[in-house]
């Protein structure tokens, strides 16, 4: 089986967030642990590590 190049799968590996159905977002990411108050939720998907 051919091995994929990293560039082929990299963006997929960064797409691991989901909309929770059974609990609120704050239960998964408590503000006192996760921080980021004032940063809109949709902004988190735009986090782009430079390397």
């Amino acid at each position: 089986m051919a091995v994929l190049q990293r560039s082929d799968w990299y963006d997929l590996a960064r797409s691991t967030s989901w909309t929770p159905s059974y609990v609120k977002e704050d239960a998964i990411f408590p503000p006192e642990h996760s921080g980021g108050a004032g940063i809109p939720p949709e902004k988190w998907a735009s986090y782009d590590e430079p390397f």
Partner: protein
Amino acid sequence: MDVQRQKDAGAYSVKAALERMDLYAKGDPGWISTLKEHYAAVAVVEYGAALMEARFVRFSKAPGMRNMATFGMLDETRHAQMQLYFPHEYIAKDRQFDWAHEAMRTDNWGVVAARHFFDDMMMTRDVIATSILLNFAFETGYTNLQFIGLASDAAKAGDFTFSKLIQSIQSDEARHAQIGTPLVKMMIESGRKAEAQKLIDIAFW
């Protein structure tokens, strides 16, 4: 992973090759003191940084940051292990090298200040604040320069084992230190520039 394995192979083989050099007996006493101080201040703190990265893996809202923190956790564990293993060679010659493991458990006044700083920066705040304090301000702003300068000092002192070790560590650090940079950008774009600046000021000063 293969790159990391190669880095380990490089650092450990230089150590093995130079073990007979007897740096402890022949090296500059000032350099030997610097080595003791470095290992005491850094080795266990690297393990603390692994715990910090683990918090990022769990609590960061950014998937890319969670991925990078997973690798950062591996990096810091590697650094902790290397910086405990490398000074171990000198324990039989000079007991003070046991400070690599012991220092952070003592109430030495210098250590108390360092422990207070790292506990505050790494352990007590939320993921975003911690990443800006540590990854951005401390790792990128300070250790990136300090470790490379230290590697050069080591080479001048004839300690090529340590020089290789520090360069190897910094190649990991230079990568995961960049975890904080996108956060600063996001905070500015979200109108939180003053907060980001304050965090950088706290870490730097």
